């Protein structure tokens, strides 16, 4: 199955969920990742339900945040 992940074409074996895809792609701390498929951002609860399909355009991004809290 051919898909695009972060702008790069990839060949994946078999149908798999987004949760499984994050494992296959060795994404560390998947709980801190946002996922967009074909322009739609998924809720985290959907990761174990949504099945990746042929020609899907998938983007992964880490949560980005921080701040000076507690710094002197």
């Amino acid at each position, binding site marked *: 199955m051919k898909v695009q992940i972060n702008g790069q074409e990839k060949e994946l074996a078999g149908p798999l969920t987004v949760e499984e895809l994050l494992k296959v792609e060795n994404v560390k701390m998947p709980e801190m990742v946002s996922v967009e498929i074909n322009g739609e951002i998924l809720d985290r609860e959907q990761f174990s339900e949504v099945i990746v399909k042929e020609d899907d355009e998938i983007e992964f*991004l880490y949560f*980005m945040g921080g701040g000076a809290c507690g710094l*002197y």
Partner: protein
Amino acid sequence: MKIILQQAEYEKMIKQARAEFPHECCGLLAGQKAEDHIEIQMIFPMVNVDGSSEHFTMDPKEQFAVVKKVRNAGLQLIGNYHSHPYTPSRPSGEDIRLAHDPDFLYGILSLEHSETPVLHFFYIHSPTKVTKLEIEIKR
């Protein structure tokens, strides 16, 4: 590893931080990586959805849009930056805790001394391994 930052982008970052003061500002860094240096060619100011002097959070929707712009410009997403309105240019505990990508560059612009902003870039590998990188502002 040396970080090269275009003067115009450096000034844009300072202008953003001052405009959003007393809140923290934030943004993404795009450019090219070489073996011994990283050149930041464009910065992308982002909305700090926290609207806070002590925290920042980027909106994933805006992040995804900028990532595509970066890719279309033939550049790489190489890091992010934020300002510390009242404190030094070094990562806080929260900055370290939320630094999920060891290959990402983390820029912190301090406005502690408002007339003389201080910018440093870091690699954050773990709470005990934070590396401050040399920086060159390129005219």
